[in-house]
Each structure stands twice: as C-alpha cells, then as structure tokens.
C-alpha cells in the first residue's frame, strides 16, 4: 500500500472517529480527541518557537536592539514554572494587558463607533426604509442604557423604547440563525465528498 493511499485511510478513520461522537462518547473518539489536541498544541508550539527565533532573536542579533524588551519580557514569562518567583511573570502580563486594551480601544472607537455614527447621521430620511433603519438603531441602542431608574416616568419611557429594541433584536437574531444553517451544512458536504470521492471512490 503506498503512502498516499494510507494517508486517505488515516484521514477517513479520523473523520469517522469524530462523527462517532454524534452517537455518543466512545474510546475511538477519545483517542482521536487526545491525538488531535496533542497535535494542535504541538503545531502551535512549533510556530511559537519559530516566531521567537525569527521574530525576536535573529533580528536582535542582527542589530535591532529594541527587541531586547521582548526578549526580557519573554524570559520573565518563563518564571511561571518556578513558584517562588512566579510573580515576576505578572510584569510582562501587565504590559500585554495594557497593549491589548490600547488596541481594543483604538478599533472600538474608530471603525465600530465613530464611523457608524457618521454613516447613520448622514442618512437622508427620504424612504420608509431609512426612517425605519434610524428608528431601529436608536431603539436598539436605548436598550443598552443602564443607568436610570425605571420607576420614574422618564425611566419608564426609556425602558419601553428598549423593549421595542429587544423585539427588533429578536428579528435580527432569528434572521441570522436562519441565514446560517445552510452555510453550516456545507461543512458536512465537504467531508462527505472526501469520504465518497477520495476514500470509497463512489464519485468520479
């Protein structure tokens, strides 16, 4: 049996092993699951090691001194393995959290908040659809107002607008689900195609 054929058989075994879980947990699935988690972790670690080498160490040796910061931080992270000095790893962690927050803030404000205001505020209310669009955006956003007391008349009004928003969101969620089901089916189609065509040769 040549290697390519063996490969197809291995792949078919893997496919069926995973699908067997749909019936119930079983040793074959357990084997596939553990093998897969191991392989995936290894693949990521291999990528990580490669990145440390070509992203930090090699350019640093080639004269990009500022990468020293990353190397020191990386070594500090490694202190996690030693309980007595594990607190050191919090230092680079704090830095990572800060940079992550900075990035998140950047994207949140520009493309997800500001541009959306501009796009909505520039909309001409000359069709019924546009009026509706604006009203829906306003209602949905009102649902997310938190700091008010719903026992006052004003608060009660906000709450009722928010309830309208809630119903519109249900329309949106229902529509998204409906639109998604068909797409998800294509994932199985690709696997069946593999089983019937490449493995069993039932299709040409």
């Amino acid at each position, binding site marked *: 049996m040549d290697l390519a054929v063996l490969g197809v058989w291995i792949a078919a075994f893997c496919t069926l092993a995973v699908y067997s879980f749909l019936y119930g947990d079983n040793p074959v699935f357990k084997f596939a699951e553990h093998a897969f988690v191991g392989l995936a972790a290894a693949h990521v670690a291999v990528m*990580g090691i490669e*990145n440390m080498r070509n*992203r930090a160490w090699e350019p640093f040796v080639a004269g990009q001194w500022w990468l020293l910061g990353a190397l020191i931080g990386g070594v500090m992270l490694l202190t996690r393995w030693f309980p007595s000095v594990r607190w050191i790893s919090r230092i680079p962690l704090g830095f990572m959290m800060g940079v992550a927050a900075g990035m998140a803030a950047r994207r949140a404000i520009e493309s997800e908040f500001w*541009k959306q205001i501009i796009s909505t505020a520039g909309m001409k209310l000359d069709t019924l659809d546009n009026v509706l669009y604006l009203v829906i955006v306003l209602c949905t956003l009102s649902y997310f107002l938190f700091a008010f007391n719903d026992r006052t008349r004003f608060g009660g009004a906000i709450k009722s607008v928010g309830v309208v928003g809630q119903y519109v969101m249900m329309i949106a969620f229902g529509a998204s689900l409906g639109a998604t089901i068909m797409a998800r089916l294509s994932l199985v189609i690709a696997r069946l195609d593999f089983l019937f065509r490449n493995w069993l040769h039932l299709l040409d």
Partner: protein
Amino acid sequence: MDDFLTRMQNIDRRIIYTVVFIVLAVPMFKPMGLPLKITRETKASYDAIEALPEGALVMFATANAPGTQAELEPQSIAVVKHLMRKNAKIVFNPVAAESPRYCDRYREMMAAAGFEEGVDFIQLPYQAGGETLYVAMGTDLKSAYVMIQPGQYELWDSIDGMQDFDLFVDCGGGETQRWAIGHIEAKYHIPHITLITAVILAVVQPYFTSRQFSGIVSGLNGAAEYEVLAGFPGLAASGMDAQSLGHLWVIFTIVLGNVAYFITKAGKAAKARGGGD
C-alpha cells in the same frame, strides 16, 4: 396520539442527525441542478479583480484553517486562478497558525502554471499576534516582516509599504476583515475584497454598504457564483443541491415541532375548560 405529539416535540437528536447525513449524501450521487442566483457582492468582487491592470500587486492575506476550508478553499482557488489570469503579482500572507499550508498549495498552483517564485509571487512567514500584526502592517510593512532579508525576494524588495498594493484580499471566517479595514483600508484606501464564511456575512455586509469593502465572496454559494462568473467549473457548484435539500429537512423539523406544540397546547386548553376526552 398525545404521546406521538409529545415525541414530535422532542425528536431524538440522533434521528435528526441521521436524516441530515442522508439528505446531504443523496444529491451527491443524483444532482438536481437547481439554479444559481449571482449576488451583487460576488459580482462586485469579480469586477474589482477584472478592473486590475496587468501585473497589479496584490496582497492575499488568509486566515484559512481546516475548520473554514469547506467554504474558503473553493473561493480562494477561484480568486487565485482569476488573479493568475490577470498576471497579478501576489504576496501570500498567512495570518493564522494553520494557514501556511494553504498558501503552500496556492504557490504550487502558481508555480505549476509557470509563474516564478520570488518574482511573481512570494509567501510571507506566519506571525502570531492577530490584530497586532495588522496594526504593524499598516504602520510599517517592512519592519513588520524584519525577518525577510533584503535581496531574498525581488518582489519584496520592490515594495515599500502597503500603499504600493493595488488590491488587498482578506480571507477568513473571523475577525480579520475588521482588522483589515480598521488598520489598512482606513489608512491607505486601497480596494479591499473579502472572502468569508457565510456565517459572518451579516456583520461584514454593512462595510460593503459603506464602501469599505469593494466586494464580498461569502460561503459555498459565493464560491459557486464566482466559479460561474470567472468560468472555472469547480468544487463549489456541485455541493449546492445537497445544501438546499439539507436546509429543507431542517425547516421541516421546525414546522413539525411547532405544529405538535400547538396541537398539544390546544388540547390542554380544551381539557382545562372541562371538555371530554
């Protein structure tokens, strides 16, 4: 009867799964040839590539992974083939840990068609970092890829930064589209088209309406449409029938569940009013 109706409300999931298998498998052997409607998003993507000048410089960033390959791979192959027809110079950029293997295949495809590695196409190394990487590319492409030595690739040496590109293709089923428009499109305004899984179309579509994306190819449908437009009969079109049939089965179970639910509820209400058995 009541027993039957209750059971229709709680069909064993294994039965549902088995039927899903069957209805997806049958059309593979007996295609029905249902018609295909081409959406404006796919058409716009096709037009964007068709409008490129000969030898245009394109970045093909991909986050393709085994989980998304069923949808993204047929799309990617169709788009790369189309780019090859335009003699585009392509920089493949795997942006997820599992993506380099896919880029390898596109490169093999190009090399087999007589394109020269290093001159007509290159593949950048994968780097961890996600959004950070997109920020870095937008800030300074060359220093984001410090590990590529000058002189290593002729094509890479001729590029100064993102502003040199004529088109940015972003392929992925996750967050990369937003990073691409947030950090690259926002800054350089080069045309962007995106290849996505159908699931995320709803969130990506507003960016098409706002012209931040010039085109969207979404899901297996998008791939099939693209194949038809570009004239490469391929993988995607053959799966469309199975998809429709599976879809009908799901609709059927939903209707069944609701009908049973309402009959039972009506029955209960009648009993509560004191009706006989």
